[in-house]
């Protein structure tokens, strides 16, 4: 028995949001200009992540050279202090982390113009400082921002969010309490389209409910895309101002 009402009959969630509300979303780019070619800091609720992109650069070893396109790698560093309880392991070789890395690489391989950078490697590092549910979606957003900051050509924004299904109500952008209580879907959308480049269903979701879940998820990712776009434009503006001054 859960200690909480996950979704009350009055339509409020455990943290006070309604079914279709995102958590507070803050982001900034070029946060680590000296450490990497592109960087971003992102807060999606209590998820806090730093993303660093280096590249395009010469691959570390010859064996990694791909003559057709750039090779993309993603490393996730789930810090030991990211969860409520300090974890003993570094989560580095956990199955879950490895799976996330693979899904992220696959998603971005389709959305980056990698053929423009043959014989190079692009390395993405994600540092998760704090974890509170729906981390994969947050990582998608963080990586998108950092890649843009690094100036790597891409077709459009990729924005991600998780959606859960509580009984018959889809709930947008789950926190960790909610994530543990219901089955959820993570969606990665390309730009303002309804094209999905990531769809991860880790538990059972009934087929007849999936449509409503995806609909609210896509609406959520579009909203996130707008928030990221706004931040980018603001950042661009200050940068241009700094240059002209």
């Amino acid at each position, binding site marked *: 028995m859960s200690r909480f*009402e996950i979704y009350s009959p009055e339509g409020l969630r455990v*943290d*006070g949001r*309604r079914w279709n509300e995102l*958590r507070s979303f803050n982001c900034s780019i070029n946060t680590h200009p000296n450490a990497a070619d592109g960087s971003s800091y992102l807060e999606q609720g209590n998820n806090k992540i730093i993303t660093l992109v280096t590249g395009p650069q010469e691959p570390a070893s010859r064996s990694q050279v791909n003559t057709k396109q750039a090779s993309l790698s993603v490393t996730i560093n789930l810090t030991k202090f990211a969860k409520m309880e300090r974890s003993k392991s570094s989560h580095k070789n956990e199955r879950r982390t490895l799976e996330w890395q693979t899904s992220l690489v696959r998603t971005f391989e389709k959305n980056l113009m990698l053929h423009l950078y043959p014989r190079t490697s692009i390395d993405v590092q994600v540092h998760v400082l704090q974890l*509170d549910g729906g981390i994969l979606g947050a990582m998608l957003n963080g990586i998108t921002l950092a890649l843009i900051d690094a100036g790597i050509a891409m077709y459009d924004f990729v924005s991600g969010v998780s959606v859960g299904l509580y009984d018959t109500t889809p709930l947008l952008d789950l926190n960790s309490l909610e994530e543990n209580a219901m089955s959820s879907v993570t969606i990665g959308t390309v730009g303002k389209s309804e094209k999905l480049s990531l769809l991860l269903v880790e538990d*059972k979701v009934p087929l007849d409910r999936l449509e409503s879940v995806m609909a609210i998820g896509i609406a959520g990712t579009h909203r996130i895309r707008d928030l990221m776009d706004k931040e980018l434009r603001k950042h661009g503006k200050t940068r241009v101002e700094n240059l002209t001054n």
Partner: protein
Amino acid sequence: MASVQQLRRKRISDGLTVTQKVFVRSRNGGAQKVVREHYLRKDIPCLSRICDVCPNVIVPNAVGELPKFVLAASPQELEGLSAGKRHYVVVDANIILQSIDLLENPHCFFDVIVPQIVLDEVRNKSYPIYTRIRALCRDSEDDVKRFIVFHNEFSEYTFVDRTVQESINDRNDRAIRRTVEWYAGHLKAKEISVVFVTNDRLNRQEALKSGLVAKSLSEYVDMLPNSEEIRDLIPNLAPSSGMSNKMLQDDPEGAGASSGGKIAEFCFPEYYSTSRIMGGMKNGSLYQGSIQISEYNFLEGTVSLPNFKKPVLVLGQKNLNRSFNGDLVVVELLPQAEWKAPSTVTIDSEHFNVNDNPDNDGEDDDGELSGVASGSATIMSDKDRRLLAQSAIQAQQSNKVQPTARVVGITRRSWRQYVGQITPTSVDPQSSGTQNVFVILMDKCLPKIRIRTRLAKQLLNKRIVISVDCWPENYRYPLGHFVRDLGEIESAQAETEALLLEHDVEYRPFSKKVLDCLPSEGHNWKAPVDITDAEEISKDPLLTNRKDFRDKLICSIDPPGCVDIDDALHAKQLPNGNWEVGVHIADVTHFVKPGTALDSEGASRGTSVYLVDKRIDMLPMLLGTDLCSLKPYVDRFAFSVIWELDNNAHIVAVDFTKSVIRSREAFSYEKAQNRIDDETATDELTQGMRALLQLSKKLKQKRLDAGALNLASPEVKVHMDSETSDPNEVEIKKLLDTNSLVEEFMLLANISVARKIYDAFPQTAMLRRHAPPPSTNFELLNEMLQVKKGMSISLESSKALADSLDRCEDPNDPYLNTLVRIMSTRCMMAAQYFHAGAFSYVDFRHYGLAVDIYTHFTSPIRRYCDVVAHRQLAGAIGYEALDLSHRDKQKMEMICRNINKRHRNAQFAGRASIEYYVGQVMRNNESTETGYVIKVFNNGIAVLVPKFGVEGLIRLENLTENPQNAEFVEDKFSLRFVDMNGQSREVGVFDKVEVQLKSVLDPATSKRKAQLLLK
């Protein structure tokens, strides 16, 4: 929990602010900091109909519904309020937890605001009470009671931060006061006052300081216009005992009378502290289990513990230490010197300490019964206790002495509402004011309850409902309060309601929400004439998947007068010589769709309950007796199982389909039998029925060959006078061939369906199993058989059991076989519903029917299991997608647990009803009947009278004039005594005796019982 931090709030969009909830909790010795986001909003409405601000801020939910404004525009007026007399009430958590009955009362508490923080606390303290208060909020549109939940924690106006040095409880109290304050300000212009009801004095003082209206529960009740009738319903809490009852401590009335300075000498041992219990359970010196009080002796309980083969005994009032039947208790073993055999004495609470005075809890006059408790003084280390546990296990294996234990803590109370009556001896007829009286409960495993009431005189000779509040250690009897009056004792209505309440059967009429789910056509609903008609298909697209079986010669066979016809049958010879046999079951799931209010009502009722004079339906009448019922001569939807059987009743093929049928005739068992026996009838329908009968006999034989049991229970039927509806005759149920005809095909259908749904849903299929009985259950019976008759029952397999039961014949006593079967039935395990994921395939076995897999499919009108099975079968054959709730293990687990409980309760209620009516029949005709001794105690014998199916205890006092000289021969299971005529007699178990039966009204309990006297 002690860390506080002032937190910033950040505005993220219009009307939404985010803050963080930070607290430190200890977990496994370490500290853990928990940070959670917390969103505050401005769109949380007050939900008062009079408010003209809130309707502008509300937003719809996921399905586009707007919140409903519930609180009345002109609520009840309250005398003695300084400002507006019309008022809403805000309650705190303790009021809900202690007085939920009062809140549910339809004569007070009309407009109530439950702050979210209160609801959360209630949820954490007691989930059942949480569901009750939630139900009140949900059903509050009916306009009698208007309860709402106000999410104060999420409203920007009412959220309060925890300040430095403030405890969580203080902060929560302040949050409630803030809510009251907000409401008061919000509704001030509308002249509605908000009354804060709390029994916490400090909270009340704080509230008064900040200018709010705060009352204690009794103060509030006193202000009501109908306070006279409500006052008795206020919970009776122990005034100032060691327990943390800070409420009522300033209530002069509550504290005055009973604790008046006198310190009670009687005292139960204190419960251990939580930490000691946790520690003890971890290191193996304490054990937890649920306690079962013996139905023959209310001072003897047993606790089944996983480590022990046999249950551990708990003897005596002090060792039982205030536990109720069914409580989850923590026990500690007693030293070996105090281990005992289960008592062979019978004691019931109604005859025990009849003369106790409810006003004093003083003198300790029963030395012998509490004597065992003296052992608690011995000091033992944990190590000793573990050694003790080992020898306890050994002792259980070797001899009759059983380890005894005492209760040292109660993890969970099983308290609910109980039905009982006031003991006349405890009422002072002179006094007209409030007095303490005893209430004897219907359940004889429970002690009497002390209540305070001013209605004692009016309530004499009435069945009343009471609720238990607490049992402090210095009180010999638990304290409770009066809830409701059911009516005169022995009036059919009161007795029926009492037994429904006692067995937790929901008998209130269906709510409007449930009835709204029924087809709007009502009784005029008709199955479509042509199921290929495009217009009909557009209304119901699933119609295309239905088959038209209206040409088949289908008939139903049921008990006479049956109106809810679940099943119908047909048989037809195929050209290849095989038989096409169809079982057609009412298609209830066509009307009861998952997720509707109708479905959840059916799920929670779980089963229909059949009483002698009344039927409590699981589904509304319209469905049960009309639209679903497979009545003759009309088109009905059905779910059909069609087999091809060869002449030896082997299944060649099976098919499942939804269908439309038209039953040709509804037979009673007797009429069907006559039709089959009537050789002049040669029409096709009769031919089909004859074929069914032949096939069913073969099926039965096959089943018996496989080892199916043929057990017996003393089932009787009460005939009612059709005019006066007084019971006037008792009859033992007769079995005809046609009974078993229907039964065999239902079994076959259930088995076929079970296989199919298990195949489709290996994790969640709804099934029914019957575990083999553990040999220990049969130990006593076998020993008795061995000693008295030289027979034995084999338990190797169900086949062996069935055969050995057949061998238990005594040429001199043809009834012995049935008697042994009845007694064996009581040793069996109960069959249970489960979902396929809960057990492995080998454990699916149904022992009694000797099949490997089984379910219930054939009575969806009266059992919820069948409804689930129908949906799963529909999913398995691709008729419609199976609802999520039947594909989820957890949800199936909850469904199974509930229907198992309901099923059991329904059986008990049915039996209790028969028992009551048999008592009424005997009231009019006293007689001498043949009975059989089924159990012997050292102070009495238990006798079963097959003719009436009643069982009664004959006490030694009624057997002989000098009970001291009677001798209990334990190893021969007999009692030797000198009977009333001065002749020496020995009565043993299985003996046939002549008994005089009469029905007597017990003066102490006013319960009518069969009294048996040995001739």
